């Protein structure tokens, strides 16, 4: 079991979701986060004062998958989120020790899907 954490551009969320559905990955958690990557991103201006180096708004996805779904999940995220410019984001893959479905108390691979 793996936990996939992806940081993507907010406006790419719809496309990534669509690609994930196509890859038959339906269970995701989405949160809004702030982060700092390499890119300067879109600069905001308040009353004429330029603010650079702001933390930029990103979307964080968390997806728990069984090993045989890992590659297709990564491919789907890349396909939906990639523009080729800085700021597209990152994907982190972690080993996942345990998973419990609260309703049924199932554990492990059976609980993920």
């Amino acid at each position, binding site marked *: 079991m793996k936990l996939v954490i992806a940081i993507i551009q907010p406006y790419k969320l719809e496309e990534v979701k669509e690609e994930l559905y196509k890859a038959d990955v339906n269970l995701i958690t989405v949160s809004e986060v*702030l982060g700092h990557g390499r890119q300067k991103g879109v600069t905001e201006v308040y009353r004429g004062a330029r603010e650079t180096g702001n933390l930029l708004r990103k979307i964080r996805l968390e997806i728990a998958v069984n090993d045989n779904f890992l590659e297709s999940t990564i491919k789907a995220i890349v396909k939906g989120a990639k523009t080729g410019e800085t700021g597209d984001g990152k994907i982190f893959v972690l080993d996942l020790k345990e998973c419990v479905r609260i309703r049924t108390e199932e554990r492990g691979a059976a609980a993920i899907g």
Partner: protein
Amino acid sequence: MINQADTLFVLLSAAFVMLMTPGLAFFYGGMVRRKNILSVLMQCFVALCLLSLQWILFGYSLSFAPGNGFWGGLSWFGLNGVGAAPYAGYSATIPHQAFMVFQMMFAVITPALIIGAFAERMKFSAFLVFTLLWATFVYDPLCHWVWGEGGWLKNLGVLDFAGGIVVHTSAGIAALVTTIVIGKRRNLEHTPSPHNLPFVVLGTSLLWFGWYGFNAGSALAVNGIAVSAFIATNTAAAAAGLSWAFLEWIRNGKPTVFGIVTGSIAGLATITPASGFVTPISAIIIGIAASIVCFIAVAVTKPRFGYDDSLDAFGVHGVGGILGTLLTGVLASKVINPAGSNGLFYGNPKQLLIQLVGVVVAISYTFLATFVIYKLVDIFFRMRVSEKDELVGLDLTQHRERAYTILE
């Protein structure tokens, strides 16, 4: 002879109506996705600035100078000859400039109403040019036809107390045209829910409040007609809000906040042309009719035809304005306003026909002129933002600001 009470009343009414444009900004702003709220507030606010100046420079002259039946001409350019003395053609008891500034607020809000149709996808620069041209070539002529001295629809006997044709039909039809020509918003599986419903309620409340100035103020004097327009306005809004909530309750299982405020606005738009001509009971009928017809337009017709009128500028204002103008021909009564006419129910079927002519003329002219203006601006400025700008949101891409922060 200047009457001080009348002057005070009209000036205060102008201030009430001014407040409607920011009210509209929150009404619309709450409905869009949060990445676009500033763009809507900005469009409404810039309309207030831009059209205030247009009105002083030449808009008022085009609309209200004597001219001929079709346009006012430029004889009052820069308010030349529009001073403190009353102009009897419009009101003998208030300074001419008081009438001018009251009408200015109508000229501001009408183009702002159209924003609801193309919200979340129009480029700001193109919006500015479109709004200026639309105010000049659609609003000003139409205003002259219906309200201006010697206007040909006015001479025909068309009744429009506070703007069912001039404001709501024209803005509504322009909304329909622009929403179809600009096309749907991208990446929408379904209509997005309003990002801030309390803003929508706040906006509605400001609009309802301002509408007293809009309708009662249109009497241009402290008299019985102003009082009756005030009551008709409130009554229609109340009847429409309540009936929309019940319609939803019956059809969808729950009455919603969004529904009751949408219904109220539909009622206010629909009563506008009739407000100074009808009894309170007629206002209830108009309010209920407004909800039923606009509900069908928004919940049944729009999905069937598939156009993306983002915030229902046509479905609520256009449909309401047309319906109200026709119902004026049915329910108007000379007992309420001796300067008006009787409608169908008061033994004068001809008035309904006259109202129909007024509506058809306004729809045809607005449809054609809006289309031409849109295409013209599109050639030089491209109306629609790029796909990426639309996905990122207009607040950041058009104004480099955002409305909400996550931390701090």
